[in-house]
């Protein structure tokens, strides 16, 4: 799989791990992996607020070399680790 943004090889598992690390560090302020359920809604769990969501989008664009369009900014794409991984994988054609 060729990363369209950076030319490096990347797998969905690595995306998940990188996202988890980022959310844990920047929104849960912890390295305790058990705090983050991949299926849980960020907003329902009050993990990420509205402005935090914008920061997360900026991070995704920077780290994964994709562009998040206005119409992509819906909870179905962004509101949990599982949804984020699916969204990024879909955009980059990852397995």
């Amino acid at each position, binding site marked *: 799989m060729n990363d369209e943004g950076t030319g490096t090889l990347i797998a969905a598992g690595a995306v998940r791990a990188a996202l988890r690390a980022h959310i844990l*560090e*920047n929104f*849960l*302020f*912890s*390295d305790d992996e058990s705090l983050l359920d991949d299926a849980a*809604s960020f*907003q*329902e769990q*009050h993990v990420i*607020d*509205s*402005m*935090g*969501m*914008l*920061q997360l989008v900026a991070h995704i664009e920077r780290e994964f070399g994709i562009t998040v369009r*206005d*119409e992509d*900014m*819906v*909870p179905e794409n*962004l*509101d949990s680790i599982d949804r984020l991984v699916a969204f990024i994988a879909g955009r980059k054609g990852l397995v």
Partner: protein
Amino acid sequence: MCGIAGILALDGCPDRISRARLGAMAAALAHRGPDGGGYLIDPCGPLGLAHRRLAIVDPAGGRQPIANEDGTVHVVLNGEICNHVELRRELGSRGHRFHTGTDTEVLVHLYEEHGDELLHALNGQFAFALWDARRRRLMLARDRPGISPLYYWQGPSELVFASEIKALLAVIPRPAVNPRAIRQVFRCWAPLSPETPFAGVFEVEPGQLAIATPEGLTLRRYWEWSFPPAGEERRGGEPELAEELQALLDDATRLRLRADVPVGACLSGGLDSSLLAALAARATSGGPLRTFSIRFTDRDLDETPFQRAMAERLGTTHTEVTVDRAAVADALPAVIRAAETPLLRAAPAPVARLASRIHAAGVKVVLTGEGADEVFGGYDLFREAKVRAFCARRRDSRLRPLLLKRLYPYLTFTRDQTPAVLKSYFAALDDDTAQPVFSHRPRFAAGLRCEVFLHPHFREQIDGFDPEARLAADLEAGLRGRDVLQRAQLLEARTLLAGYLLSSQGDRMLMAHSVEGRYPYLDHRVIEFGNALAPQLKVRVLREKHLLKRCAQGLVPDAIRERPKQPYRAPDAAAFVGPGRPAWVADALGGLAIRRAGYFDANRVNRLVRKLETAAARGEPISHVDSQAFMAVLSTQLWHGFFQEGR
């Protein structure tokens, strides 16, 4: 305002009441009353009173405590009885003899006439202690909206009370932290009355009366923030209602200009303070009105052009205080010491600097515009609740959430958000409009971020305590069957207004510099007028303070009257990160200090600081919830250092 304090020996033992103990309490209140002091130790009773005076009415003759004709009733007052002239006339006609020209003296004579019911005759801002020596009965009372503070601590054999907690600390065993109040501050911005962050220390609530005898303490409320029965609100005749409101505000302002020292006015640049300054300028004789404003070097927060426009229009002698981030950071320790509570905002810091400047200008009293937003529907939170209720009725609507973008034109995040994200943000709150605290759920939910940083051991102490449920239960009778706006107003009056704006951002910051704030919008007649209005006369569609704007026509230029509300804000976490931050910040947030205090998880706090430092280095904005959490941690650490470790 002044400072009052006292001790009632519940065991009847007069030995507890010493001049030394009363003196220690009074000394802790010296900033509230630099012009003099007085004491009373009842020779045959178990009571002592102390007073520190900020001389405003009858400066030469107003020494307190003041007694009635036969010396059986004594009082110390903090605040002002604004209608004392009228009360004095009435009492004089009934044969009472006055020995001073003060407002304080009316209290003892009113008590002789009406007993505890005297409170209903008072128009003003006050906290007083009145001792009936014959009945060996102490009355502690506080004004209706809670402008003047009054705290107490009840030990096994004595009741100790004072205008500020620091005076209690001078004579009682050091109280431990009240962990529930910490959670209340994080969620609701202030401790929920009557609790304080100090275990065992309570406040007399706004509109409450406490009766203490050697047998114990009883409390009752003599006034409530209440609304007429649904359907009976005042609706029609807008021009007449606006005229009535102006006459009422004119009178409320006139009463609050009564003083034997100069009275100035604060000008924020918004509608509320501009209208007050206009009314005050009209009523002031003997030279131009003095006005005072805060300028910010942060351009997003600054309102200088509007302040200057109003000052020029009124021809006032105008003074500006310029505040930058460094000034905010430098002031915070003194702010926490004065406020005696952790804070989620640094906004009191510029007020403290303004107060210092007002004091230096030789002005002891200023009119200020607090209360207008609560009474007449000015807050964004009110409009936000209305939009959320509107969206909740049609959850599938794609257009309705666009209204949310109109709510906060001054916040970049709403400008940049898509409707779907905004909608989901609010939908995550489980928006049931029937919930008693529906309007405030976004604010309370934002406070949850602060709790991410709590240490598990500290969190264990508050597990199971839910401030929202407590608030809903406390206010159940007042909230039941009310319109969304009315519920929001009541919640705001009982949490943010009394608990934060009038205390941490009001009385404490002003009185730390011996300046008295006066609040015409919180004249109880004005509150009752506002509460009687139909909700649409306050927030019409999304236009805030509809009737007040109409009332200000001709007195306030349209450029100010019709400008979108800009809430008063100061730089928060941004003032404490980056290269210019004061050295004490690193000390307060270091692992050692965090672990010693025991409230927070040091690793998590370290990560938060790192995140904000990185954002500052990149020039990126700090999110609202991160900023709030940072202020919660920093201010709790400072509070702990001052009041638990005695530093």
